[in-house]
């Protein structure tokens, strides 16, 4: 595919997927209904009965649109965070959870659910502990001299294990009738948690991070050749890496704030994107963003529509991601040894 056509095509597919997803739900709509509604709302074109307008408004603007926008942002964020981690840790097998951000955020959320009544507190704790976990990983890596990449990975293992254990403690002491189910459901992820106000606060930093990482993507190629080479190519490796880790952590922690833990997206989407556009991060990063966004919108549709009850999206992404990963392993391993 011509690269100058690729992104317009991706954008078109994304818009199409989003529009189609708007039609899906307990109250089915057609693309015509949706088009008519938005024409009326934005341009005042055509006419619409006030009751129908109210119904469509609450369905589309209050329920479906935020959900789809959240899916787009989360899918893109996880995919971009995953792509940048894979390049900067010189390993196509790592995912955004490498430095413990998801473990930390899970613990923060559970902590909030058990000890606080306020949903805002839960979200704040989720976000903060995502960062705390990554800071611990980085701190452990900084304590020792040597191969920074390896130390960061080990720091991530330690930090992740720490917060997983702490999460177990919270689960153990949580009230098994109300709190525990809420925690468990949160850990399985779900876009039904999304609310509009949070979407606005979380969405902007996520978008900014995606754009910034796209700007830095030329450095990612050099970083993936190893620290020494990158530095010899004139890149202030430590500074850039810490900045990218900060952005990736910000994005990933916010996905948990929005919709709980959604696994596998950050691992498989970069692979899928690499198979389509090749390994050059300048193209790969934005391509991952689009493919991740489209993927999560579709998977959310599947989660909503497949059965009468909604399946937590974290389960769907895993069930789709695992076999996909097993299949692409064969193709992807070419570049590893």
């Amino acid at each position, binding site marked *: 595919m011509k690269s100058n056509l690729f992104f317009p095509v991706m954008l078109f597919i994304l818009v199409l997927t989003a529009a189609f997803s708007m039609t899906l739900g307990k109250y089915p709509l057609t693309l015509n209904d949706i088009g008519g509604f938005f024409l009326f709302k934005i341009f005042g074109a055509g006419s619409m009965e006030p009751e129908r307008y109210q119904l469509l408004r609450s369905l589309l603007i209050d329920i479906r649109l935020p959900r789809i926008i959240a899916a787009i942002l989360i899918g893109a964020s996880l995919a971009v965070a995953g792509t940048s981690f894979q390049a900067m840790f010189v390993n196509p097998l790592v995912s955004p959870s490498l430095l413990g951000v998801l473990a930390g955020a899970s613990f923060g959320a559970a902590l909030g659910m058990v000890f606080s009544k306020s949903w805002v507190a839960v979200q704040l704790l989720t976000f903060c502990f995502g960062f705390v976990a990554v800071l611990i990983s980085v701190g452990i890596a900084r304590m020792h001299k040597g191969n920074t990449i390896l130390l960061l990975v080990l720091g991530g293992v330690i930090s992740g294990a720490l917060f997983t254990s702490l999460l177990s403690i919270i689960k153990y002491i949580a009230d098994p009738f109300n709190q525990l189910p809420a925690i468990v459901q949160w850990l399985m992820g779900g876009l039904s948690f999304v609310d509009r106000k949070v979407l606005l606060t979380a969405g902007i930093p996520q978008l900014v991070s995606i754009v910034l990482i796209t700007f830095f993507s030329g450095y990612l190629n*050099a970083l*993936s*050749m190893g620290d020494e*080479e990158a*530095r*010899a*190519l004139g890149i202030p490796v430590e500074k850039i890496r810490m900045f990218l880790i900060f952005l990736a952590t910000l994005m990933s922690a916010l996905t948990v704030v929005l919709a709980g833990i959604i696994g596998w997206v950050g691992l498989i989407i970069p692979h899928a994107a690499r198979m389509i556009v090749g*390994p050059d991060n300048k193209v790969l990063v934005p391509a991952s963003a689009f493919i991740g966004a489209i993927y999560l919108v579709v998977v959310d549709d599947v989660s909503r529509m497949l059965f009468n009850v909604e399946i937590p999206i974290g389960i769907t992404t895993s069930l789709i991601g695992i076999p996909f990963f097993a299949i692409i392993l064969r193709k992807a391993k070419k*570049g*590893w040894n």
Partner: protein
Amino acid sequence: MELKTLIKADRVSFAYSRKTVLNNISFTIAEGEVVTLLGPNGCGKSTLIKVMLGLLSPLSGRIIFNGENIAHMSPKYLAREIAYVPQIHKSSFPYTVMDVVLMGRIPHKTFFFSYSKNDMNIAVDALERLSILHLANRAYTEISGGERQLTLIARALAQGAKTFIMDEPASGLDYGNQLRLLDQIVKLSREGYTFIKSTHSPEHALWVADRAIMIKNGAVVADGACDNVISDENLFHLYNARVSVLKLNGSLRVCVPRTICGCMELTGSPQTNAFHDLAGIPEDKMKKNIKASHHGRISEKDESGVFSNKRPDG
């Protein structure tokens, strides 16, 4: 010789925690020189290279490039002056050769960047100079070791630096590719590039370098023109290996292990006539002899087979 001093190592010392690796190393390198660092495994060659590239900060002393301490130069500025050509490696991601060469343009880019037409032209030009333009769209992970090494040199060219620092560039290359690598070094040095490379093969130094710096236990033990420095005694001192440095026709020299030389009675006298003879044998006769040794004795007594050249038609 009134050559401009390019790099000066001024009493450089370095240690990993408590282990001293470089001990008070000083030397100067002139513009356009090809300098080889020789020394046994673990002598500090690689560390010295990293210090010269600014990847490691010396414990004491300084590296001065063009009159300026590299510790005070930004990585970006340094990268425009000095290019690092690492040992061949496999990338974890199958970048195209072009992508890899384009990385050399990073030091010329501003904070947020994409590659311009000019960068592309420079990269294509670099590939052309090394005659590997046909590889441009191949995956770096799928080309041969020799081709990867040439790609890394092309990247250094694209970087626009005039000084190349190479860490054992020949390691991992087969014999033919080693020779082609040396050819490229000779070619580029004639164009005015300065080379500092480490190697495990004194012959490579004899063939392409102007100068050799010998390092043992983190200190310079010999420094000078290759023909003077690479001697039987120095190589014995450096590697604890008994070697004869023999002079061929003209000024070319080769190293031959004494155990193999033994049968040629070369002891102590590097400039024996044996190799003058060898060099003087017409090519067809050489071939014949090689053939003979192929048919005949290729066992543990092979040494004598190799040197059957000594007795032409014998």
